[in-house]
């Protein structure tokens, strides 16, 4: 059983010359869950993950693995495995030799190399130079490196990038299985839809600041929007029932607009009140739209509306 290993980022600030890349970034990735770290390119995802894995130093704040900074871990690859980029391999070295080099430095038994190569489906290409690998194969090699130490936590930067549809399905299944074993899985993406079927929790970063941190279901809930209608005489009764159920109700052009309840729950409220619906449609924005709204660049949208 993996030991419980939360990844905690606390009040991180990173300044590169005149640019503040991270402002007071805090969140925790919990064991047994897949946490999606989402935001547009350049929002600060990679900077945060590199600080978490001890590659970069924060200007202030801290990042820990089960309470210990990466650099202070004895044999870190056995606690947390990371894959941050698919172009960190010597093109003339074979995938297998790359993993042997890492295993030797990390004190991981060499037989693990062939185990992880098979786990990521690279055994057939293992002895070929990495220079001839596709992006998807390099992603798999990076993942193999992260899995090498059989770690309690995984940190993966854009792991879906470059995978074909089969590869994406495989990756989702693998990450789910790893989290179900009790491991902590933290992965980044700039496209929510890419990971929305995989993640339990979502942390959204924009311009170096966290703008959302919670369960994926919370992200969906906040913006549910349903349009309903009943016979005109029953509208007041329906509005009262929905309000009593905790929804916000507005009078729409055709019937009522319900905010804060999903379509199914809205229908149940109407049924329990004995009202027959003449119309029910889900007009929520969808996760991707919510995500875009969260991460939209104000200056860009301001320019867009001015044009």
């Amino acid at each position, binding site marked *: 059983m993996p030991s419980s290993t939360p990844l905690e980022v606390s009040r991180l600030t990173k300044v590169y010359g005149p640019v503040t890349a991270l402002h007071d970034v805090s969140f925790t990735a919990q064991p047994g869950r897949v946490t999606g770290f989402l935001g547009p390119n350049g929002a600060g995802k990679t900077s945060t993950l*590199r600080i978490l*894995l*001890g*590659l*970069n*130093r924060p200007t202030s704040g801290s990042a820990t693995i089960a309470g210990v900074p*990466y*650099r202070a*871990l004895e044999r*870190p*690859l056995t606690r947390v495995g*990371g894959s*941050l*980029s698919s*172009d*960190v*391999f*010597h*093109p*003339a*070295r*074979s995938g297998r*030799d*790359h993993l*042997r*080099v*890492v295993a*030797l*430095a*990390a*004190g991981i038994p060499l037989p693990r190399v062939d185990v992880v190569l098979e786990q990521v489906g690279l055994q057939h290409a293992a002895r070929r130079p990495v220079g001839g690998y596709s992006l998807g194969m390099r992603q798999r090699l990076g993942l193999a*490196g992260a899995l090498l130490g059989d770690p309690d936590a995984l940190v993966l930067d854009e792991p879906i990038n470059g995978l074909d549809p089969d590869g994406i399905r495989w990756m989702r299944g693998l990450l789910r299985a790893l989290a179900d074993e009790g491991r902590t899985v933290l992965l980044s993406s700039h496209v929510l839809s890419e990971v929305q079927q995989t993640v339990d929790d979502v942390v959204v970063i924009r311009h170096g600041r966290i703008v959302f941190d919670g369960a994926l279901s919370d992200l969906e809930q906040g913006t549910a929007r349903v349009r309903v209608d009943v016979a005109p005489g029953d509208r007041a009764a329906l509005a009262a029932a929905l309000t009593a159920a905790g929804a916000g109700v507005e009078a729409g052009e055709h019937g009522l607009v319900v905010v804060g309840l999903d379509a199914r729950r809205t229908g149940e409220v109407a049924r329990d009140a004995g009202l027959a619906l003449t119309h029910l449609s889900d007009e929520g924005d969808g996760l991707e739209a919510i995500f875009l709204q969260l991460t939209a660049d104000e200056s860009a949208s301001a320019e867009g509306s001015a044009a």
Partner: protein
Amino acid sequence: MSALGRAVASEFAKVLSLRAWWLLGLVLLLYIAVTAAGLAFFLSDLGAQLGAAAGPGAPVLDAVTTANLVYSSVTAVGLVIPLLFGALLATTEYRHRTLTPTVLAQPRRGVVLAAKAVVALVMGALYGVIGLAGSVGAGAPTLLAVGEQAALDEPDVLTVLARTLLATALWSLLGLGLGALLTSQIAAIVIVLAFTQFVEPILRLIAGISEPTAAIARFLPGAATDALVGAGILSSLGAIDPSVPNATADALLWWQGGLVLAALAVVPVVVAALTTARRDVE
């Protein structure tokens, strides 16, 4: 195994999984073999006769000096190879961004650099062995063929051979330090080639013009190496060709030359450990 032991094993695996180390060895072997054979021929009586025909005063060197000059081709012209090896050992990590997986596996970067220093010294000594295989392997038969002595049973000659290994090991370490400081592979290669092939030989020739400059030039790495090894074509130019300006400062003793070279090799590594090895890994 200790963290350093693991890092050393990993660094050796890195080197041995690529072709560069033996390609450099092959180049060194051929280059030194051709140089030593040519030098043996040039320095032989036959060479001296050719020189005498060209003008009077060409000296005849004794057997040990001649043999030492031939065998020390490794340190006279071959040090560029261990130097290049050391520089590549450091800069390849930046060039191919392999520093990321390296530092993930061993976040204590001082340990990584120390492991590379061990590999640089061992591989540098190996290049010394390869170079001597070339200089003795081609030089000794050529000396015999032109009627000179191979002098391989002379203690003075054996001392030169042994110190050659120390010199190539230290030059490899010097390359590591330069590479770790520069981080750019292109810059490191250009500087290594320019310095060993042009800058230092020219500086040493020019420094021979006056005694103060000659005294300073003793601390150039090539000059310190000649002192350490006890033979070198540049420091013997005056004996071979009296027309070369040859103001002499008291030559460094062999161990002084060794210490100067060791300091020149260690300082860049230490400075790199305190500077570039603390930067963010990009």
